[in-house]
């Protein structure tokens, strides 16, 4: 125990760990309720998704001739593959729900107002990228449901006036849903969107730490 304290002190002198801890976790908060836990819950779910997602890439192959079989292998051939994929599958739905309710809470408590507009705006990006993760991840199992859901989803994007056909072919990487579509959805799912999300979470949390969280509005406010 004394040894541990010594090590922590040694590190703290050099890294300023306690200062980080005090600033990030020992913040003053107003009297709030359980709805205020949804931001932390979203972050927790994101971390779960990131970790399980990284593990899934060990066996998943983003190619039409192997995608489905590689997932079958994860589910039946690898120890606890069902657990890792199950967490990722259910965590994805849960994350969309939690992030959405988190947005509703912010809206109904009017927590997006000055000086927290940027927290709100980065939050909007985070909600949209979360939906983007859901959309891009849905294709990856490459089963009938994934294939047709993405056919329909990209077709809907294609109905936009003027630029619709362009959006459609950019999303699909050509006119049809193909190996190119699967590969680019995979790239977007594991690199592009996560990079944006991590960046936005950084700004979002910096704002929260800097400004603190807002109190529940009074009746006459």
């Amino acid at each position: 125990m004394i040894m541990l304290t010594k090590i922590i002190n040694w590190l703290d002198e050099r890294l300023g760990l306690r200062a980080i801890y005090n600033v990030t976790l020992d913040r003053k908060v107003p009297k709030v309720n359980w709805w205020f836990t949804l931001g932390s819950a979203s972050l927790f779910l994101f971390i779960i998704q990131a970790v399980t997602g990284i593990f899934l890439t060990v066996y998943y192959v983003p190619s039409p001739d192997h995608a489905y079989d590689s997932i079958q292998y994860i589910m039946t051939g690898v120890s606890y593959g069902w657990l890792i994929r199950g967490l990722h599958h259910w965590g994805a739905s849960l994350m969309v729900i939690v992030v959405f309710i988190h947005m509703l809470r912010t809206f109904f408590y009017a927590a997006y107002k000055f000086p927290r507009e940027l927290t709100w705006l980065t939050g909007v990006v985070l909600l949209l990228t979360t939906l983007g993760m859901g959309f891009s991840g849905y294709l990856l199992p490459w089963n009938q449901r994934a294939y047709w859901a993405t056919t329909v989803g990209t077709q809907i994007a294609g109905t936009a006036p003027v630029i619709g056909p362009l959006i459609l072919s950019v999303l699909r990487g050509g006119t049809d849903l193909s190996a190119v579509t699967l590969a680019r959805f995979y790239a977007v799912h594991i690199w592009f969107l996560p990079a944006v999300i991590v960046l936005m979470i950084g700004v979002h949390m910096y704002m929260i730490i800097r400004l603190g969280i807002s109190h529940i509005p009074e009746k006459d406010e």
Partner: protein
Amino acid sequence: MQKSHHLSRNEFVKITVGALGAVIAGVIGIPAVAYLLSPALKNQALDAWVPLGPLDIYPVGEPTMFTFIRTKVNGWEKTVYSYGVYVYRKNETEVMVFSNVCTHLACRVTFQDDTREYDCPCHDAQFDIEGNILAGPPPRPMDRYETKVEEGLLSIRLLEG
């Protein structure tokens, strides 16, 4: 605040969060390690007799290459592996079958007609016609298969894993 052996609210939260964190880390961490290691630990042992055809087709005194393939399921894919063996009939009754995989670092050896030895192109390993080391870095003589001849048909025992 009165001193007592009861936990304070703050301590209770800290301990609970720590314990829950440890449980979650364990529930995910232990399966995660098993998940990464499981293909490596899977038993892929192989024990099969492979027929090489009638013994008579192999000339006496001349190592002859015989090739065959076997299919293995690796994860999501069937992989075809090719094997090469040298059948060497020392005389009418004695037969030796060698794997052409070099015992050094698994390159493939070739029998040289002029020097009457097996040479490995990678690191200059040389084995004599009976698989003994002549020169180079190999740690042991060429690997020999267990053989049997039934009704004139030669078979070797393929053992792996």
